[in-house]
């Protein structure tokens, strides 16, 4: 019997493609963000509100993933930014190869920001690197404040938590302070923004976060280049 040490990642093929994507994003100065949540937490609504408030000439594109239908892409196309639907046909997450394939006919030099809406799922998307600069997890107040403890991986790996549907707080038994505590237990450095995509409450703070990230990313790239 002989034991051969392998010492590599199980998803090394995905990670290889993700690393290539990350390098291409950096080369073209594109900040890529990967939005993850349960189905129905409001990822698409958040994207609608974001695209609505970005200037028309902004160099933004969206890839949106679902198991079936073009519904989300159709919702997002009316803002006149490039949008492409990724239908996985059953797969419960996006992987780096899907991103690579769907980027193929876009000119990356025309983009500064790529927003990826993952398939609605708090578990599997956590395992797949898409070449993003950061993961963002969206949690809505109708879901229960213990979600960060139940699905720690995605909260652990996301830089930002967006607590959505705060307009419903008076009507649902959701302890928002407990949700924040739970998220910080799993990920002490996590940034948290509370929003309502329906009323627009808190969206300014999210847009500010986005703007700061874009600026920070640009300076980082300039520093590495010089």
């Amino acid at each position: 019997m002989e034991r051969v040490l392998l010492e590599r990642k199980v998803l090394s093929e995905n990670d290889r493609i993700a690393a290539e994507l990350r390098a291409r994003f950096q080369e073209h100065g594109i900040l890529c963000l990967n939005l993850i949540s349960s189905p129905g937490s409001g990822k698409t609504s958040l994207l609608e509100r974001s695209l609505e408030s970005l200037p028309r000439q902004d160099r933004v594109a969206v890839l949106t993933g679902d198991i079936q239908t073009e519904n989300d892409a159709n919702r997002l196309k009316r803002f006149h930014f490039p949008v492409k639907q990724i239908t996985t046909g059953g797969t419960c997450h996006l992987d780096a190869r899907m991103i690579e394939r769907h980027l193929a006919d876009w000119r990356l030099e025309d983009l500064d920001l790529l927003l990826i809406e993952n398939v609605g799922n708090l578990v599997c998307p956590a395992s797949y690197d898409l070449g993003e600069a950061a993961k963002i997890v969206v949690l809505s107040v109708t879901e229960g404040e213990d979600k960060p403890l139940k699905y720690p991986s995605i909260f652990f790996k996301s830089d930002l938590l967006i607590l959505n549907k705060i307009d419903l707080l008076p009507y649902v038994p959701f302890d928002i302070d407990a949700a924040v505590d739970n998220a910080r237990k799993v990920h002490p450095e996590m940034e948290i923004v509370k929003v309502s995509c329906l009323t627009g409450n808190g969206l300014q703070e999210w847009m500010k976060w986005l703007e700061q990230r874009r600026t920070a990313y640009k300076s980082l790239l300039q520093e590495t280049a010089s």
Partner: protein
Amino acid sequence: MHEMAIANSVLEAVRTEMGLHPGTYPCKVGVRIGEMAAIDQEALRFCFEAITLETDLESLELEIEVCPRRHRCQVCRRDFVVRDYDSRCPQCTSLETTCISGDELELAYLEVEEYGASTAGAKSTQ
């Protein structure tokens, strides 16, 4: 439920590695899974069995090592296992600790046996 995709990736890696070891067959593959990796062990075992069933790799055993979440204290440099999400340093109680492991999803090793060396699990006709 992405354990099927993970099981497939493990199996692909085994087949690639086996190309480097002619005259042997694989007995056991070891994987390392962090507790923050969002992988269900039982589901992974089930998927692995399902995709190896009635193939030349039916006898291949899957060994899973679960790795706890570990942090390192930025103040006193102590490494410790995080339990119940309490990431405070047990030595100096600092909250300035950073994660050093716990989201592994890695292939650790492969055990191979020469044909004819042992009868257990060997498939003589390949």
